[in-house]
C-alpha cells in the first residue's frame, strides 16, 4: 500500500441518510473470494437499471461527476453489515474519501484499513460541503484539513494510528505481528 497524504478531487453529493452497506454493495455480490473488481457493483441497485443500463437519475452516473473521488454522504453512512466489500467496492469505483456527519463504526474501521478516508464533520460543515457539491477539494491527511476554494478550510480528526499507517503506507498487521512477545506473555499468564 502506498502512502496517502493528499487527495485532490471534485466532490459529489449523495445526501441520503443511513446509507447502509447493502446499498453500497448488495449481498449477492459477496460470493467473491477476492477483493478485486467490486467497483462495478458499488451502489448497484441505485446505479444500474434492471436491464443493466446506467440509471441516468443516479448522481454518480452524471457526466459532470465523472472522476469525482470525494463523496459527501447523508448522516450515518455505512451502517449495517460488517462486509469489507463495501470499502473495497467504493475504492474500486474511484471513491477515495467519504464525508458525513456520522459514519458507522465497523465501516469506518474497514475503510481506514484500506485507504478509504472516512471523515466526520459537524452538521454545519456538512451543510456547507453539500451546498458546494462539485467544488474541488483538497484533503490533507497530514494536516487533517479539507482545503476549499472560496470557503474556510475544515479541520477533521481521524484515528491517529490509522492516519500514521496511511501516511506511511504500512498496514496494521505488521504492528500486531510485532507484538508477539506481549501476546505470548498474556497467553502464558492466563494458562
Amino acid at each position, binding site marked *: 500500500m502506498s502512502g496517502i497524504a493528499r487527495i485532490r478531487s471534485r466532490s459529489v453529493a449523495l445526501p441520503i441518510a443511513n446509507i447502509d452497506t447493502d446499498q453500497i454493495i448488495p449481498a449477492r455480490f459477496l460470493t467473491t473470494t477476492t477483493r478485486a473488481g467490486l467497483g462495478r457493483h458499488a451502489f448497484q*441497485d441505485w446505479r444500474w437499471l434492471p436491464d443493466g443500463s446506467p440509471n441516468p437519475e443516479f448522481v454518480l452516473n452524471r457526466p459532470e461527476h465523472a472522476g469525482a473521488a470525494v463523496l459527501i454522504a447523508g448522516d450515518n453512512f455505512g451502517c449495517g453489515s460488517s462486509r469489507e466489500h463495501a470499502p473495497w467496492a467504493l475504492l474500486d469505483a474511484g471513491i477515495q474519501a467519504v464525508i458525513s456527519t456520522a459514519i458507522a*463504526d465497523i465501516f469506518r474501521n474497514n475503510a481506514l484499513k484500506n485507504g478509504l478516508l472516512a471523515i466526520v464533520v459537524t452538521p454545519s460543515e456538512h451543510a456547507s460541503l453539500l451546498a458546494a457539491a462539485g467544488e474541488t477539494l483538497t484533503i490533507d491527511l497530514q494536516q487533517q484539513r479539507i482545503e476549499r476554494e472560496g470557503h474556510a478550510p475544515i479541520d477533521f480528526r481521524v484515528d491517529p494510528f490509522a492516519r500514521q499507517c496511511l501516511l506511511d503506507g504500512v498496514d496494521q498487521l505488521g504492528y500486531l505481528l510485532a507484538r508477539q512477545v506481549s501476546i505470548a506473555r498474556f497467553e502464558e499468564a492466563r494458562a
Partner: protein
Amino acid sequence: MTTSTLFEKLWQAHLVEADGEGLPAVIYIDLHLVHEVTSPQAFSLLGERGLRVRQPQRTLATLDHSTPTTPAHADGSRDYLDAATEQQVNALVRNCADFGVTLHGYDSPDRGIVHVMAPELGATQPGMTIVCGDSHTSTHGAFGALAFGIGSTEVGHVLATQCLLQHKPKTMAVNVRGRLPRGVSAKDLALHIAGQVGVAGGTGHVIEFCGDAIRALTMEERMTLCNMSIEMGARAGLIAPDATTIEWLRGRKMVPQGAAFEAAAKRWLGFRSDAGARFDREVLIDAGQVKATVSWGTDPGKVVAIDASLPALSPGNARAFEYMRLRPEAPIAGEHVDVVFVGSCTNSRINDLRDAAELLRGRRIAAHVRMLVVPGSERIKREAEAEGLDRVFRAAGAEWREPGCSMCLGMNGDIAKPGELVVSTSNRNFEGRQGQGVRTVLASPATAAASALAGVVADPRAWQRTEVAA
C-alpha cells in the same frame, strides 16, 4: 473504591497492551467465529505472508450464509444458487483443512447459523471476547461476553495474532424497567428500543441492557435483543450473566464439566456492572408500554406498534415511504403480504419456532402467501422435528427448510420478487435486502405467523388462542 461497568471488566481482562499516545489497545480474542463469506480474503492474506493461524483451537467455523436451504440430493450434491456460492463454501472447507481450523460443515450435527451454533455448543461463554466477520456477532453479548463484528482485514489479524487493535468505545445503559405485557416478545422489545434510540444512537458505544425486564428474559430472548444492538448502531450489546445464563450453559459440549463448571460459573457471575457504575449515556425504557412492534421503513429504527398508524410524512422519511409504497398516517395492519420468513440469527431458535407454530397449529396460511421456516441450526431442526413443529408448519402450508441464513440476506438465492412485501423475523429491512425491490417488514415470530394466516400484516393477539387457566 472505584466502580466498573461490565464492559470495563471485560476490556481490562483482555488487555494485552493498553492504549497509549496515539496508539490503540491490543485486545486478546478468546473465540473467533468464521464463516464462508468474510473469511476467504483473510485466509489469502495469511497464505500470501506465510502466516499460520495462531490459535486454531480458539477458532470455530461453520457454513451458513451461502448454503442452500433445500436438502442435499442422494449423491450428496446440493442446489447452490450458482458456481460462485459453491466455490465460496468449498474455499472455507479447504482453508479450514489447510489451517487446522475446526469446521462444522455439512457432516456436522452441530452446523448452524454462526450466532446460533456457537452458543448451543457452549463455545460462547461469559467473560469472553468474541469476534466474527459478521455484524450480528453482538448476539453473543447475551452471555456477558464482549462480542462484535469485524471486517475481513481484521479477521486476518485475529487469525494471525489472536488479537485486535481497538480504541475503547463508550458505554450506554439501556435500562428496561417493569414487565413486558403478555404476548410481547424480545423481538418487539428490540424493535421498540431501536425506534427509541435510532439506528445511529448507539454509534461508538457498547450497550448494556439491564433492568428487571431484562433479568426476566430467557437466554434465547436475550440473544434476540443483543443481536439487534448493531441495528441501534452499537458495536456490541451486553447482558450480565446470572442464574439463567449459568443453567442454560450447564452440560453443553464445550463448557467445563462437573466441579470445573461450578468454578467457572462463580467466575462468570463476577462479570457484572458494580452498583453505581457510571455509563456515558443512559436510556430508560418502560417495558409495560411495549407492544407488538413492526418496522415499516427501510432502516430498523423506523418502527410502529402493530395497532398504531404510520407517522406523518417528513423530509426524513419520504424516501422510506416511497420505497415501501406505504401511506403516511395509515395503519400498518392490513397491508397485503406476499411472503413470510421465520428464521435468521435473530429469530430461528426453538422458542421462536414454537411461537410461530402455536398460532399456525391446525390452521392454513392465506392461499396467496408463501412462507419459509428456516431453523437456525441442525440441532434446532432435530428438536423441532421431535416436537412435531415441522408437521405443524407443513400442514399450515409453509415450507420447512434446512438450517442457514436464508432469506435474511438472500445470498443463497432465497429471495422474494421485486415489489413483494415480506414479513420477516430477521434483522434488516434495508432496500433490496431480501431481493431487488423487495419490501421488508421486520416482526416477531408471532406477528409473522399471524400475518401468514391473515394474508396481511396482522396483530398476533387476534390469532392467539385463549389461555387455559393453570
